[in-house]
């Protein structure tokens, strides 16, 4: 027998407020809140949305700032072009950024979740804004949800859900442009859905997932599915800055006129504004995404009561317990050093490896060397790959070679089209007189524009020099 869905739920530590006893979703309608943190969160969110939308439009080195070109298997990241062979550096990038995020989490708790996570940014600053604009404040939304279906309700819900769908589609299209670039996205949109079925299916599924999450699933994603949220308990400690309730100051709760009571008047504003439906006064909970709505809500009440603000505030468990606060601690150093290590390797490899060209010299199949009456030749194969979105002029030369060694033939300079690879022979010769035995050579491949240089080491092979100079071969 299904359990009845309650009209309201009181937050407690034994169950998740937003999940009914029968397992169904208890839809929350958080109340409006105003305050300094809410204002700053809105500003940060708008900036992040602008960055998200603008990235595919900004061109760096002939490619969008972030362009993960899956089709051509080139990954352009802020002017750096990576090919699949370079992708191992992503382990270091993810490790570096991951551990630095752990540093931030160890110091500031779930600041990422509340302020910068794309899910929170779109949910709180786009979808809930639309909902507030169309359906009114929390009591009005609750009333609409509880009302029986009528033509007016059907119209209101249809308009709201329609706008949600359009917003989800917009976010999905911007997301797709990170993988196909804006001009191609535009051409895809002009063509029919079946001309680019993979792209269309991706956008369709992403739109559906975003619509479901932002319109209906909402805080359940953070509570039930987000792996980062689950890691919090392992990353934070008593010195982490969290959002907490000053129990010593607030308890015992009582009316504002009761002078023997603590500062908390049990007005439930902090509960009513919470987007995950918890009571912050019950202490740190896994559902708290650190959005700071309860801080602004409580500060507003405290200001009205002419009491000091900060009854609910950003503080560590130690700070809330009246003990000395501590920021620098061993786990912080460990996370920071690991993060730094990842980013150092990323920077080094990006500097040494991830150049706009790749070039490799290998010895041609067949004899190791060719001996003519006058010269000794070595044949190599050069493979050059232009990773940039523009043609490049290449020049091949020997770097600091011994006297007499030179590259012959007409292939010392050539033009390579954008994103093209070429394999061509390179012949190095040395006059017999100058030959003194096998020697290491450095072949320099220089590409313009971009001033990219790759130096490849190879061995120049030949016969025993003593044998040559004693018995010169006859023609």
């Amino acid at each position, binding site marked *: *027998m299904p*359990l*009845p869905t309650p009209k309201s739920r009181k937050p407690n530590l034994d169950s998740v407020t937003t999940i009914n*006893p029968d397992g169904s979703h208890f839809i929350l309608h958080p109340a409006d809140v105003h305050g300094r943190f809410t204002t700053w969160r809105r500003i940060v969110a708008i900036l992040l949305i602008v960055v998200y939308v603008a990235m595919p439009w900004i061109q760096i080195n002939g490619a969008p700032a972030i362009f993960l070109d899956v089709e051509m298997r080139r990954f352009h990241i802020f002017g750096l072009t990576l090919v699949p062979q370079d992708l191992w550096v992503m*382990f*270091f990038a993810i*490790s570096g950024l991951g*551990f630095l995020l752990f540093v931030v989490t160890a110091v500031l708790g779930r600041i990422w979740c509340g302020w910068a996570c794309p899910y929170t940014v779109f949910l709180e600053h786009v979808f809930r804004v639309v909902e507030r604009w169309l359906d009114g404040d929390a009591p009005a939304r609750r009333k609409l949800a509880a009302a029986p279906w009528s033509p007016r309700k059907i119209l209101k819900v249809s308009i709201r859900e329609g706008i949600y769908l359009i917003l989800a589609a917009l976010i999905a299209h911007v997301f797709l442009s990170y993988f196909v670039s804006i001009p191609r996205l535009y051409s895809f949109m002009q063509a029919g859905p079946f001309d680019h079925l993979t792209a269309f299916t991706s956008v369709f599924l992403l739109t559906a997932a975003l619509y479901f999450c932002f319109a209906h699933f909402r805080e359940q994603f953070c509570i039930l599915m987000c792996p980062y949220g689950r*890691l919090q*308990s*392992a990353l934070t400690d008593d010195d982490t800055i969290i959002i907490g309730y000053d129990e010593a100051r607030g308890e015992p709760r009582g009316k504002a006129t009761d002078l023997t009571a603590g500062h908390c008047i049990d007005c439930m504003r902090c509960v009513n504004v919470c987007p995950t439906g918890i009571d912050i006064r019950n202490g740190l909970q896994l559902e708290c995404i650190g959005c700071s709505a309860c801080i602004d809500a409580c500060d507003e009440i405290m200001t009205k009561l002419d009491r000091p603000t900060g009854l609910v505030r950003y503080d560590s468990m130690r700070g809330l317990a009246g003990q000395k606060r501590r920021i620098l601690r061993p786990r912080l150093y460990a996370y920071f050093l*690991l993060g730094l*290590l*990842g980013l*150092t*390797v990323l920077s*080094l*490899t990006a500097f*040494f490896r991830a150049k706009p060209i790749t070039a490799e010299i290998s010895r041609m199949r067949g004899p190791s060397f060719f001996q003519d009456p006058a010269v000794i030749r070595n044949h190599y194969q050069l493979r050059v790959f232009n990773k940039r979105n523009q043609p490049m002029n290449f020049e091949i030369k020997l770097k600091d070679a011994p006297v007499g060694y030179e590259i012959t033939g007409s292939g010392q300079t050539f033009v390579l089209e954008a994103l093209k690879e070429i394999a061509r022979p390179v012949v190095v010769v040395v006059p017999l007189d100058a030959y003194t035995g096998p020697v290491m050579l450095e072949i320099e491949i220089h590409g313009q524009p971009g001033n990219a240089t790759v130096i490849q080491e190879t061995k120049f092979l030949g016969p025993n020099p003593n044998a040559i100079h004693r018995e010169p071969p006859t023609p």
Partner: protein
Amino acid sequence: MKRLWIFVSLAFILLVTAWTCLIVIAVRNAPETVPVSSSQKP
């Protein structure tokens, strides 16, 4: 360049070890499993 690769390899081993340690610690400190009671009635 050879020294660079030694550094990169050591960094890789260290970071993989760190990730492994973190995952092991997180798994060992996972919240207790609460069995869902089928006898719960309203």
